[in-house]
């Protein structure tokens, strides 16, 4: 592997569609739950330990070679909101396109054929890491970082929050990101012996509810 491949994949400018999504931040801003840097940090922390952990474990398992179809079903089972499931598949499809162009691989082609409308994004993220020569820990790091960097960037646009403050939030969360990524890798490594049920299933009801409400808005800046 090359360490630089990890930077390419983790770059916020990697063209995989993430720029149009707020990770639930737009709904939380409208509901008054994010009003500044402090509440952004609380929101990101909650997302990290729930959706972020689940995504990181799925990504790590996919990067480690676990069957993508099984992981995709496991992702469905961990995503109650139909709107979030649709978003995850749309982003998975977009990431798949970017991944196949960036790191061509037979394995990616096969999964693209199997899921023409997209597999869950964390599963594709793990497969992408694999195609890039990266490992489960790299995939988990990408997933946990995405789980907080997306909302932070979105809140800069939504609230005109000082971008330095938003970036400082991410830096303050870094030690927690490390711990969540470790936990995700540990559970993913247990899948071959213990099956998919060993993967975490942490849930954030407000994110799920917020996603359903947001999907019904006629006017919004972000797709989710």
């Amino acid at each position, binding site marked *: 592997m090359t360490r630089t491949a990890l930077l390419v994949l983790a770059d916020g400018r990697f063209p995989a*569609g993430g*720029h149009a999504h707020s990770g639930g931040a737009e709904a939380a801003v409208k509901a008054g739950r994010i009003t500044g840097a402090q509440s952004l940090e609380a929101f990101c922390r909650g997302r990290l330990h729930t959706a972020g952990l689940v995504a990181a474990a799925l990504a790590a398992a996919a990067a480690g070679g676990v069957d993508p179809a099984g992981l995709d079903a496991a992702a469905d089972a961990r995503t109650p909101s139909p709107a979030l499931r649709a978003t995850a598949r*749309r982003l998975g499809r*977009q*990431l798949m*396109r970017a991944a196949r162009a960036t790191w061509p691989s037979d394995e990616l082609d096969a999964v693209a054929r199997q899921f023409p409308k997209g597999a869950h994004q964390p599963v594709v993220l793990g497969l992408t890491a694999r195609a890039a020569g990266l490992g489960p820990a790299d995939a988990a790091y990408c997933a946990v970082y995405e789980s907080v960097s997306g909302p932070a960037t*979105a809140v800069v646009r939504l609230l005109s929050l000082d971008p330095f403050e938003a970036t400082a939030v991410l830096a303050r969360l870094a030690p927690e990101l490390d711990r969540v990524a470790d936990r995700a890798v540990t559970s993913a490594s247990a899948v071959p012996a213990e099956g998919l049920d060993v993967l975490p299933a942490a849930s954030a009801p407000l994110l799920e509810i917020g996603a359903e409400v947001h999907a019904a808005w006629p*006017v919004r800046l*972000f*797709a989710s």
Partner: protein
Amino acid sequence: MHLDHFPHGPAAVGADARRPDGSRRALRIGLGGPVGSGKTATVAALCRALRDRLSLAVVTNDIYTREDAEFLLREAVLPPERITAVETGACPHTAIRDDISANLEAVEDLEDEVGPLDLILVESGGDNLTATFSKGLVDAQIFVIDVAGGDDIPRKGGPGVTTADLLVVNKTDLAPHVGSDLARMAADAKAQRAELPVVFQSLRSEHGVADVAAWVRARLAAWTA
């Protein structure tokens, strides 16, 4: 995995001229330009002018609503299944240039679901003078400005004005009311664009969108030749 269930292989990743089944895909033309310059009105007029002879679809990239898609639906310029709205996260220029994946999906899904198509118009939400379409998304692009936005825009240039395959100066009927000098705009555009074409149009005139429609037909003839 049963690969024989997927005889055409996975979808294309970029702007390949052929679809996975080997057929030629639709010509894709992008329309960009500042807010309020008349992009959606031009798209609507093009649909009316071309829909009887060509199989058409439209992708809109609104900034924060589905207004452009809904305008086209309300005007009934095409059946609803031929109009798709892409959400851009407040940044149309990102969705049409830097990260085109959502737009590529929209054009490919339209070809799968309502195709075969001859032409797909990809409209950007109103943006700034630097917003241009990626060559990975469209085959040609039209930049639409209007006389009321200031007759100095052609002189100011910028990637849209200088490099678009066609520059449209819209709302020429308003020129006397807003004090815009059409001759000066034409001279400035010529200086910025050399041989690249410029069309001055008023959709309220009888001639309407005819010049732009003729340009589109010529591009299509070259694409299918």
